[in-house]
């Protein structure tokens, strides 16, 4: 799966990100939100890693930490072997050319007062190494690459549809020829038929340009489609990490199993073995003791209530953070076919 590469392109080791809210004099005092809690992840060149989880699991925060949009509270972040955990802005500049981010909301991530051509050209201008003519040529090339007509350079974002705006966002991210793109919910704000177009576009671009992706989404079907490996997050940490096929076919962590079983599938023949989790996701300010998932877990035992499981490898190479991972004999989450 490494494609023969010797070292990962991006590596997070024990990465944590905390936010503090309140103050000593406010109600409840100083509180720490453990948005990302001791996450270790490797991203190899050419692969797509999918980060999936529900709201509050920390996947978006992790994505931003990976491209150093946020400072990390503790742990290490290495890009191409270089430790960028504590780089300042100036040191990050050359790194920024190599890793870029595509954001979720195509309606909010483009400055409505700038023309589309300027928006795409901006990274080129900021890293200022080309002439105006070169920049314009590159912008036209990029627009063609993402499936937009280069004649629309002069238009404003509001003149485009959601799907087209997302393409503009992608073109902007590609401007500096990055190696790594982190896409935060790239399709969730789009209609289903447009989602398919953008998913296909991302796959095409990866083939043509040799990109490495980290795709963050809450939609399990999309993650399955695009990812080589999948990491499932819950309350700030990774609970399962492995080859996408295996994670989906026979999830080892009870949360993954419940998550997959909860997705409604457009197939009338399947009886769903739905595992309905009780309660809501706990607050990241006051996470439960021991295993974070134990209050909602069907299989919780005493050890789960007191001891926090670490992410450990299984025999098949997958990593699970669970004291009693599910074996292959567990029930298939999507359900058996009912009748012919």
């Amino acid at each position, binding site marked *: 799966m490494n494609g023969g590469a010797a070292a990962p392109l991006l590596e997070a080791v024990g990465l944590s990100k905390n936010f503090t809210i309140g103050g000593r004099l406010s109600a409840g005092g100083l509180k720490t939100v453990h948005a990302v809690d001791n996450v270790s992840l490797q991203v190899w060149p050419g692969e797509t890693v999918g980060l999936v989880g529900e709201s509050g699991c920390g996947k978006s925060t992790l994505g931003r930490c990976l491209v150093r949009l946020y400072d990390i509270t503790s742990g290490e972040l290495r890009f191409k072997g270089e430790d960028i955990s504590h780089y300042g802005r100036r040191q990050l500049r050359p790194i920024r050319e190599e890793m870029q981010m595509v954001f979720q909301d195509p309606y909010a991530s483009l400055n409505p007062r700038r023309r589309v051509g300027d928006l795409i050209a901006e990274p080129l201008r900021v890293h200022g190494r080309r002439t105006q003519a070169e920049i314009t040529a590159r912008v036209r090339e990029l627009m063609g690459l993402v499936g937009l007509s280069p004649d629309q350079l002069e238009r404003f974002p509001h003149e485009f549809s959601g799907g087209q705006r997302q393409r503009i966002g992608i073109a902007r991210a590609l401007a500096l020829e990055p190696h790594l793109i982190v896409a935060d919910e790239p399709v969730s704000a789009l209609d289903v038929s447009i989602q398919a*177009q953008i998913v296909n576009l991302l796959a095409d671009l990866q083939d043509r340009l040799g990109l490495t992706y980290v795709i963050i989404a809450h939609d399990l079907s999309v993650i399955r489609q695009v990812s080589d490996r999948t990491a499932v997050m819950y309350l700030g940490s990774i609970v399962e990490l492995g080859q996408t096929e295996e994670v989906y076919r026979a999830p080892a962590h009870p949360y993954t199993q419940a998550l997959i079983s*909860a997705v*409604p599938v457009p197939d009338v023949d399947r009886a*769903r073995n739905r595992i*309905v989790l009780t309660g809501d996701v706990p607050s990241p300010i006051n996470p439960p003791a021991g295993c974070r998932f134990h209050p909602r877990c069907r299989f919780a035992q005493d050890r789960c209530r007191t001891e926090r499981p670490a992410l450990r490898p299984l025999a098949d190479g997958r990593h699970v953070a669970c004291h009693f991972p599910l074996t292959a004999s567990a029930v298939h989450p999507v359900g058996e076919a009912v009748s012919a």
Partner: protein
Amino acid sequence: MLQVRDLRVSFRTEHGPVRAVDGVSFDVAEREILGVVGESGSGKTISLLSVMGLINDPNAVIEGSIVYKGRELLGLSPRELRQVRGKEIAMIFQDPMTALTPVYTIGWQIAEQVLTHNAVSKRAARDRAVELLTAVGIPNPEASVDRYPHQLSGGMRQRAVIAMALSCNPSLLIADEPTTALDVTVQAQILELIQKLRRDFGSAIVLITHDMGVVAETADRVMVMYAGRVVERGTKRDLFKAPRHPYTWGLLDSIPPLDGPRPRRLKSIAGMPPSLLALPKGCAFGPRCRYRFDKCGERPGLGGSHGHDVACFLSPDARAAAWSGRLLDTKAVS
């Protein structure tokens, strides 16, 4: 119970009339769940808002017929409509975070609806609120009734909204994308709740969504809309096992499968939905349809057999050929 015939809603704008809903007809029988599927601009929300009389825009022109339990709703005075709204037909909306007034407790808001339509005491209304919160599975209903919306999570708020909508035992509940803004595990809970409530309360439900998976799980019958028109209509089984309209095929293909072989590329529908200001002549889906031929320059009517209707000129043979071609395509890319 509900019969909508030839509903047309257009808005006068400075660029000309925008036909948001263009001749939509459907029925809802008692106790059935009708799934209305479509993407943005399909007109699904506006059609159902007109049933409730909730379109407040002075530039809106609404024509057609909406008959509820034998009574024509279009043309009723605002006061008569208000007696139907909330009592006979209830509606819940997409975003539970902003659906409730932030300054009143949820118990107060539920009681308000009860008191508006029933001449009971405040005490009785409050008791009813507690009863409803229990029915929708909100923990600790006696205490929760006095909580404010911001003290509840998204899933809990949506349950409270559902409880409020059912407070006067409506015969019809319209749910506009009730789970889109929620996490998938919470969505599963809410969908289960909706089905349970259909059993316990006996209401018919119109479920508007863009998610074919939700429809497959929950609906009895399904209606697919595109550019303000109905393109296919039938039972759930008909629609998923033997869909007839190329747009329906496209929608089903666009969904990445959760199990089974993974397609190399998703079969997406080329192009974009049309602007409602400039609908194409003839079939609205024509410009994006792979199977388009000359007849498609005329607008197809909705017709079919055995309750499975489609608005498409493809002959049954042509359709079968296209369908098997499509299956071959799918197999080829896995």
